[in-house]
């Protein structure tokens, strides 16, 4: 449709808010179902996986999936060592989610703590913390992560530390701003007047009052952490064998793309559908918030 057609229909002013759909679209439902299925699969990986993810069957190497000439013995086929792709996928999903969860939580705790420290001490402490915040925000984090891996080496602890560093600066900014405005309020004054120490004030009183905003940030941060881990593992710089995450599965399956696409593509679709589901839910949540305000 061209600009002219829009003029003819006089539609180039946005319609009023009321005209917008109020019912959540069917995609929101799909997104929710997909995420729940992923979560259940990851939690019950031991039950759902038909094989041990590292069990080799050299006589059944590179079997195609069902519908492409394979059998139900291996629904998604097998890899170059005869390992069941479906089982590996589920365990990879579990590891990816666990790592992202650990990374997100570390980032949330670290950032919130530093933000509160900045708000409490002000002065030079605040300046130093905000300097770190600005430095991290100025650089693409993927490069920071790569530099850290180059200097410290690959390893699970280092990977978790790197994932934990991701996004802390946004929590620090939020927590600082929220704590500054919260400590002006009457309840903070009252708690202070009753003789509570700063730790009690921040952890028991201010934190519960500002937690909602921080949690919203967590839901943005989590899928990004999944992508960060997938990207690093895809390059072979994250999770190291014999452990596999979705990213490393996609990364090494890439070498077999010509004769066994079923090693790489399912892992890729899994990551894609999950980020898509998160985007759809985030859009929907934003729409709802927009309409409320």
């Amino acid at each position, binding site marked *: *449709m061209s*600009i002219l057609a829009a003029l003819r229909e006089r539609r180039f002013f946005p319609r009023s808010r009321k005209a917008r759909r109020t019912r959540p679209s069917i995609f929101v439902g799909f997104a929710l179902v997909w995420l729940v299925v992923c979560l259940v699969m990851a939690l019950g990986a031991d039950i759902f996986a038909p094989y041990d993810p590292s069990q080799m069957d050299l006589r059944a190497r590179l079997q195609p999936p069902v519908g492409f000439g394979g059998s139900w013995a291996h629904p998604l086929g097998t890899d170059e060592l005869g390992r069941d792709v479906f089982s590996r996928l589920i365990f990879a999903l579990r590891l990816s989610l666990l790592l992202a969860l650990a990374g997100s939580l570390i980032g949330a705790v670290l950032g919130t703590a530093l933000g509160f420290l900045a708000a409490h001490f002000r002065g030079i402490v605040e300046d130093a913390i905000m300097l770190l915040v600005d*430095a991290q925000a100025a650089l693409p984090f993927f490069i920071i992560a790569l530099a850290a891996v*180059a*200097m410290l080496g690959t390893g699970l602890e280092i990977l978790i530390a790197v994932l934990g560093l991701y996004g802390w600066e946004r929590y620090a900014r939020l927590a600082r701003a929220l704590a500054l405005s919260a400590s002006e309020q009457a309840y903070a004054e009252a708690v202070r007047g009753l003789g509570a120490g700063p730790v009690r004030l921040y952890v028991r009183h201010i934190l519960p009052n500002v937690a909602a905003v921080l949690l919203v940030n967590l839901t943005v941060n989590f899928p990004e952490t999944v992508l960060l881990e997938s990207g690093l593992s895809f*390059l072979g710089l994250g999770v190291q064998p014999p452990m596999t995450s979705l990213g490393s599965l996609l990364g090494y399956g890439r070498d077999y793309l010509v004769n066994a696409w079923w090693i790489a593509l399912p892992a890729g679709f899994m990551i894609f559908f999950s980020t898509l589901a998160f985007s759809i839910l985030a859009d929907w949540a934003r729409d709802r918030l927009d309409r409320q305000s």
Partner: protein
Amino acid sequence: MIYVLRKSARALFTVWFVVTLTFVILRASGDPLLSVINPENFTRDALEAYRERLGLDVPIYEQYIRYLGQVLNGDFGQSFLYAEDAWSIVAARIPMTLELMLPALALMLVLGVPVGVAAALNSNSPLDRGLMAGSVIFFSLPNFFLGVLLIFLFSVELRLLPSAGSGSWRHAVLPVFTIGASGAAVFARFTRSAMLEALGKPYVLAARARGLSLGVIVWRHAFPNTLLSLVTVLGFLIGGLIAGAVIVETIFAWPGLGRLTKHAVELRDLPVVQVIVFLVTLTMVGTNLAVDLLYAWLDPRIRSAGGLR
């Protein structure tokens, strides 16, 4: 003028900070000599000689001052892997990476902005929904998967385009699209919402009342007012481009900075990694500075008020 000076000082400060942080982390992670050689194979005298040659025999603050001087001269030492200056190894790869980055940037703008404007002009129509659904899909496709998917479709199945290497425009098609697609999607979304906001402003109503044509209203009145937010997004996307280059160049075996970064990290070639971090810092700080200056140029209010804070 004060605005420009303040922003520039801040930019310089960030560069200094990152350079210093790199120095601190590298020195804190152990004796740099031991990461290069195995001490058991050398006599004490030989170790001392090495220390002296690498400048590790002087106190740490002197090392730091010497290091700052070297960085200013672009001297980051020799690559651990190649008997060559780290800076020149990196510099030699820059043109190859720009060959991907500039077309990808152009693709983002050429595809993203018109799509966003079209969606805004037809807001809530099937066209709008379709375009926005497409943008959500491309925005959610991680570059490492999009690259693999494109190779599978266009190289393995259809055999239309080469999957790896460089040398002709055909080699660049898939990597450029892989880098540019998600950026175009982001642009489309931001253009749409900025355009919708601008179209609802009184000056657009005034322009309509004057009987101006829709093209003039959209491109001369509304669009300039969306530029501010587009410039902001552009600033963010440059960072994504740099990170994306590492992954995309690795997938398509494109011999640029990104693939060099991956190899240098994998093999722990620290001088090369340092140069790359320094270069990325300069690029990002330069981009942010350029965005700030563009703001002032685009919006006279900022110029007179002494800056957005």
